[in-house]
């Protein structure tokens, strides 16, 4: 939903990182206090687009936040089989960019890091590279078993113990802000919302065949 600032998911690994730098460029160009944010995995950080975009973001002090969700696996390739170094945030130093490693399993820590990055983007307009360390619980896709080829069952089980949602629920319960039944009710509520979205998509009518040729070009070819 572009009207809410969601500029889409992108199918080319790392391809959206220069786009984000462009959006940050536009914000600075027009003088707004917006911030351009993008997410990518640690595997994308080895792609040329990442380096070229972060160089310009650092060079021009663009109001952008580059979030690397380091979940250790690019499809079936563990980071240590794809990258000379495990520490992705260090790459920010090559582009004179503030960088942090954040524990992705700790909700409050992630929020705090984002707050710092947003403030930094607005005053004095500078980019941030956040390396959020987390772990991929599932397979790369439906056809990829959770473990077997490239990681062990034990490894996955160990990481599952630090599931951010469970950690956060336990914290709230410990502080008496919610109880077990409250957490279960919330779970059910979310599941219902997901189910509702699934049903909506599943039962929506197929698009009219005329849609095939719509939106290839702008309706009015020349503006004004």
């Amino acid at each position, binding site marked *: 939903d572009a009207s809410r600032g969601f500029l889409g998911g992108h199918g080319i690994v790392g391809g959206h990182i220069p786009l984000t730098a462009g959006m940050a460029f536009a914000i600075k*160009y027009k003088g707004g206090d917006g911030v351009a944010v993008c997410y990518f995995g640690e595997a994308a950080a080895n792609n040329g*687009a990442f380096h070229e975009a972060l*160089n310009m973001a650092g060079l021009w002090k663009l109001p952008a936040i580059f979030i690397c969700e380091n979940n250790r696996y690019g499809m079936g390739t563990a980071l240590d089989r794809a990258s000379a170094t495990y520490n992705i945030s260090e790459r920010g130093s090559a582009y004179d960019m503030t960088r942090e490693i954040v524990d992705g399993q700790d909700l409050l820590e992630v929020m705090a890091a984002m707050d710092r990055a947003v403030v930094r983007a607005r005053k004095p307009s500078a980019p941030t590279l956040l390396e959020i360390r987390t772990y991929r619980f599932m397979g790369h896709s439906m056809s990829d078993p959770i473990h077997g080829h490239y990681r062990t069952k034990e490894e996955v089980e160990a990481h599952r113990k630090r599931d951010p949602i469970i950690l956060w629920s336990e914290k709230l319960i410990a502080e008496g802000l919610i109880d077990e039944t409250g957490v279960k009710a919330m779970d059910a509520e979310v599941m219902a919302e997901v189910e509702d979205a699934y049903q909506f998509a599943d039962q929506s009518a197929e698009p009219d065949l005329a849609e095939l040729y719509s939106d290839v070009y702008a309706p009015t070819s020349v503006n004004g």
Partner: protein
Amino acid sequence: MTTLTYRDALNQALREEMRRDPNVFLMGEEVGVYQGAYKVSRGLLEEFGPTRVVDTPITELGFGGVGVGAAMVGLRPIIEFMTWNFALLAIDQIINAAAKMRYMSGGQVGVPIVFRGPGGSALQLAAQHSQAFESLYAHIPGLKVVAPATPADAKGLLKTAIRDNDPVIFIEGEMLYNTKGEVPEEEYTTPLGLADIKRSGDHVTLICHSKTVSVALKAAEQLAEEQIQAEVVDLRSIRPLDEGTILQSVGKTHRCVVVEEGWPFAGVGAQVVDTIQREAFDALDAPVLRVTGADVPMPYNKHLEKAAKADPGKVVAAVRKVLYLE
């Protein structure tokens, strides 16, 4: 009318459009302080400042993507590639992002952007600096491709391209920058998708664009000495292709030679010939022939390079064939 070089005509277009719309900005290597690798952006930094005339690192993919991102959120970038040979690095951002964004987003997000710079060969720049890529980009739904031959067309088409709400691939030419021509003094724009009859004639149609327009015109002069009147149709825009003007001309002359600088296989001419055989088959008195660049990487040696290029002699020979004079 005033006489301008192709370079200065482009400079005027950039200046006028940047004055007209504050969202228009120019970005690329050496466009600012250096005044442009080919001086097309001379004086723009001084008038519009570094926020709107932005020198970049040598990262075509990077700043190509920056342009697309900026266009997605309301700016109108003009991304200059020092030459279209280097733009191959940015082709993912052009084809996978710019060309598809509107379609993928269900019409929510357009990409009003111009990618421009010189294409094709100059003199002894050899294989990696001499390529004509019109057909590569014209193959892609979502892009428009423009290749003006004259100063007047260059100015009018660049102004239109900048105002266009879709990504436009704007291909100039190193060998064209110094050429001169008459340019209207009052403001004007030239529509995309409209070819232009640069010389009328009844005996054969020469379809061309960019640098090969002058090749076709020279061939037409030589042919006129043998009382053969060639009609020179300058496509100006490769996509959208002005099929109407092509078919009208071939309908009149019944013979056609398509001239282009690029390589023969799946070149622009292949598409033009398809249009003619499909829509004007019965009007043809001879097969349509094509004169193209040689199907080789551009050689460095001067004599080999000359042999590799489409030239008036080859066009005259092809015309004699379609007139069965050989």
